[in-house]
């Protein structure tokens, strides 16, 4: 009895410790972003001083812009590319299918640093000027496999005759795609899109290697700024954390709400 009590207690304690380990640094960062002094150890009072400094710092603001715009563009382009690839993949011959799904996993499993150096060498070899465009291209390239991975299972789950049925009823191939296929695989597309966005938004390693000419995203500028104590970073990090948190929340909660709603409609009908 006692043994079991202790066992369950220690289990709870273990989980608690884990969470503390993960989240304490984040909370410390968030709390000290509101500190009125420069100290990173003593909380001297609440202020939004670092947030105003953040907004006034044009270097940081341009990094925010780079991060947001690269993430948005890379997400949009890789979602379209990845979705089309996944649909095409499902129509290919079996051997091609197997090979491509395996090849698609390589960039996901590959250490980021390898991808980063690879892309850097590629851009140098092609004499691309390093900057915004190279960063965008790199982000598209590492986001697309994630989109394919989340869309492909949905496409494979479709009835083989679904596109035929649409065309049989008078839809052109393009209409079959937009009016039937895409709506049916939408959950996969949304998941891939959010995954791509978060991947792109918080990327450091690849961006660091492929960017140049002063073009920096948030991670890069944070890295540059940590060389001196600067609580503005805390303010920036807090914003990033909140953005990521909201994104994760959206990914996980929206499908559940939708399911519940769908089920309710069904129940009403039965």
């Amino acid at each position, binding site marked *: 009895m006692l043994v079991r009590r202790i066992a369950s207690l220690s289990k709870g304690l273990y989980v608690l410790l884990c969470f503390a380990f993960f989240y304490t640094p984040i909370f410390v960062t968030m709390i000290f972003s509101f500190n009125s002094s420069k100290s990173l150890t003593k909380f001297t009072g609440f202020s939004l001083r670092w947030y105003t400094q953040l907004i006034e710092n044009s270097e940081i603001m341009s990094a925010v812009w780079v991060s947001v715009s690269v993430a948005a563009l890379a997400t949009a382009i890789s979602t379209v590319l990845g979705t089309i690839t996944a649909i095409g993949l499902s129509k290919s011959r079996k051997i091609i299918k197997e090979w491509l799904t395996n090849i698609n996993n390589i960039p996901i499993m590959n250490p980021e640093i390898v991808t980063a150096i690879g892309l850097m060498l590629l851009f140098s070899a092609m004499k691309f000027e390093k900057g915004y465009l190279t960063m965008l291209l790199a982000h598209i390239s590492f986001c697309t496999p994630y989109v394919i991975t989340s869309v492909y299972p949905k496409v494979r789950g479709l*009835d083989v005759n679904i596109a035929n049925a649409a065309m049989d009823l*008078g839809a052109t191939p393009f209409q079959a795609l937009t009016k039937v296929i895409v709506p049916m695989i939408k959950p996969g597309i949304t998941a891939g899109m959010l995954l791509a966005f978060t991947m792109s938004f918080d990327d450091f390693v690849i961006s660091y290697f492929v960017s140049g000419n002063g073009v920096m995203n948030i991670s890069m500028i944070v890295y540059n700024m940590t060389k001196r104590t600067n609580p503005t970073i805390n303010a920036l990090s807090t914003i990033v954390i909140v953005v990521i948190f909201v994104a994760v929340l959206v990914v996980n909660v929206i499908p559940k709400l939708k399911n519940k709603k769908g089920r309710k409609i069904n129940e009403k009908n039965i």
Partner: protein
Amino acid sequence: MNTLIELKNITKTFDDQQVLKGINLKINENEFLTLLGPSGCGKTTTLRIIAGFDEADSGELLFDGIEISKLPPYKREVNTVFQKYALFPHLNVAENIAFGLNIKKTDKTVVVQKVEKMLELVGLSGFEKRDVTSLSGGQQQRVAIARALINEPKVLLLDEPLGALDARLRKEMQTELKKIQKEVGITFIYVTHDQEEALSMSDTVVVMNDGYIQQIGTPTDVYNEPENRFVASFIGESNIIKGTMIRDCLVSFDGFEFECVDKGFKENEEIEVVLRPEDIDIVKPENAKIKGTVESVVFKGVHYEIMVRTELRSYMIHTTDFFEVGLDVGLTFGPEDIHVMWKMV
């Protein structure tokens, strides 16, 4: 009757395997035509070529006398009901049925009216807002039929539409489909491997095997006058016996000569004879040429299935009378019960 669709020498090969080996078929207006054959004989492939999902390797496909092989599916005046329905799960019943009309940008009020009429036709009034995934198999099938018919096609293609339903629902839907076909008055091309279904619903049955058409005819024709051994054994049960056509209306098998009604064979041509189990009568041995012993008796509900062992073979007989195992009996049949067929090479 006008020919609506004509297939001329259609062939199709998938990965070195010739699936259709020269299909010639004329399909009339308002006809209920069934493609019947065992699994893998090319029924679905034939249907997909007519619908435009596959293209034949060679041959012609005429619709109202016009070659349509190169026409994409969305420009053909045919609609399809798929085996697994292929409904759109993100749309409700009404939206599924209205899909074709909405693609053609039909006026909203017209769409609503037509959807209602279609739901009435297939017996699903009041189901407009239902989620298609919440429907039973039979109901989904009806939605699939309504979704196709609302486009007022000249031809409806149905690929084993009742394959996924249980026996009782199948029977019900068979009658219903036949009724719907009469009501809308268009051509139905129906695919099945169930011979009973084919015989009870069709105007014309096309028996296929291994990429060839074996016989085209009315249900009574293919049942009573099978052209070869395959058709005879695939449709219903039968006794198939090798024999010789001595001359017109005289055939010899099992060591005896029998009068028959078949003509047009060469003298002394090797042929095969079909005797349907229900056409053979069991009589006293002294009243018959063929004599044997009752080998087994199985009760089948309405009739007994009796096997009679003769000198050369066992005959299967269906009769409502009971005979004891071991009894010596004779077998008789009339001239019109003997069906003579070409021998298969």
